[in-house]
């Protein structure tokens, strides 16, 4: 509760009509962002405590859990610079959902395994040029990996993503079609 209260307070402050409508001054907007950020960070720590209890077979996990807070600019240090990543995806809705997840990767070919160890269909998309060139974007990659997840109500699923090296990509520049078959 001591940790959750930070985000509760921040959200309570942001019920103010200036925050809802965007009529606050710029320095106030920055303070709202700061309050929300601290609150979210505390909640991430709580989620991290529960994720620590997960066991991934014989795999060793370095450095604990990571959030990718810059996915809104298609940038994620963890998925871009690690050849092997485990993704834990939580569904906050009280019903089963199918959801497409998408994050940047640096490699050319990957294998995605579901919780049963079965390889699942995925796709690698080129990131649009204007996004690649966004001012302040801290990433050198131009690819995103995407796949469909099926998540239980108020529960999570785990996926293993690993880079494959013995692969020759097929890019048909004439047709504009980027194929991975």
């Amino acid at each position, binding site marked *: 509760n001591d940790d959750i209260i930070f985000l509760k307070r921040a959200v309570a402050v942001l019920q103010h009509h200036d925050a*809802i409508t965007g009529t606050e*001054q710029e320095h106030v907007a920055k303070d709202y962002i700061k309050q929300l950020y601290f609150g979210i960070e505390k909640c991430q720590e709580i989620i991290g405590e529960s994720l620590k209890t997960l066991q991934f077979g014989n795999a060793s996990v370095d450095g604990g859990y990571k959030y990718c807070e810059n996915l809104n600019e298609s940038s994620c240090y963890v998925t871009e610079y690690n050849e092997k990543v485990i993704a834990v995806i939580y569904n906050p*809705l009280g019903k089963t959902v199918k959801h497409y997840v998408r994050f940047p990767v640096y490699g050319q070919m990957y294998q995605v395994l579901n919780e049963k160890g079965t390889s699942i269909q*995925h796709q690698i998309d080129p990131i649009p040029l204007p996004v690649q060139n966004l001012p302040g974007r801290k990433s050198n990659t131009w690819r995103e990996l995407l796949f469909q997840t099926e998540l239980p109500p108020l529960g999570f699923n785990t996926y293993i993503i690993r880079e494959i090296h013995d692969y020759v990509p097929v890019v048909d520049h004439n047709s504009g079609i980027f194929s991975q078959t």
Partner: protein
Amino acid sequence: EHDVTLGNELLQVIIDRNSGLLKAMVLENETYNIRQSFYWYEGQPGFGREKASGAYAFNPISNRALDLSGNTTFRIVKGDIVEELQQTFTPWLSQVIRIYKGVKHLEFEWVVGPIPVGDWRGKEIVSRFESDLESNGTFYTDSNGRETMQRIRNFRPTWSLNVSEPVSGNYYPVTAWIYIKDPLRNLQLTILPDRAEGATSLYDGVLELMVHRRLLYDDVYGVSEPLNERGIDGKGLVVRGKHYLLLGSIDGAVLEMKDLAQRALMKPVITFFQANFTDNDVE
């Protein structure tokens, strides 16, 4: 040489080969004309009698928005999971239109900014969806996720409205959905935003949602500064967001839009672990 078709097993879209814009949707072998583009309103600077467009007031100089699609370039990406159209309207405005396998909606992911203001003209950017639905001056917006409100253009239910602001006087807040209906054709066009936006239907069959604004003068309603956030690098903010488009029968639309709105607002949370494992560990 031909228009481009993207789609899945449930719906197809036709992209105009010349403009690079969405031109039509095909559902159950029926083709529906739907164009989507970005427009901008020039914000009133407030030098004369008119008040400036600012944080509180949306006050465009002209009632007519200008189309930003004149020099659009595009590329197509087709894969096993998603087919998409990547559009670049201007160096500061781009969009991806996606159709994922197995879904009945279109996803529009736009990136807007930094809005250039070197010409000292404030700009308010809207995404506009134009269809041939006969909506008869009526559209519907949610009320902060609660009751859906019927809105009638240039009309208020409890008093006689003198229309002095034909554009902003018809703008309403939207957090979950805005839609128009064509009862004769049993069709509903719904747009769901991923954040609170201002939206309207200024013409029959047309929906528009404001996605970004950058203005240079204070509107003197209390904020005491222009709506001109410049960000860390001082060049102006960039926003990236999504709209979801649903087209279908009026009865079916309610269930689909409520499910989609829930999934858009309560997205899954992704956490990553850097892991060391061998192929045997995977097994």
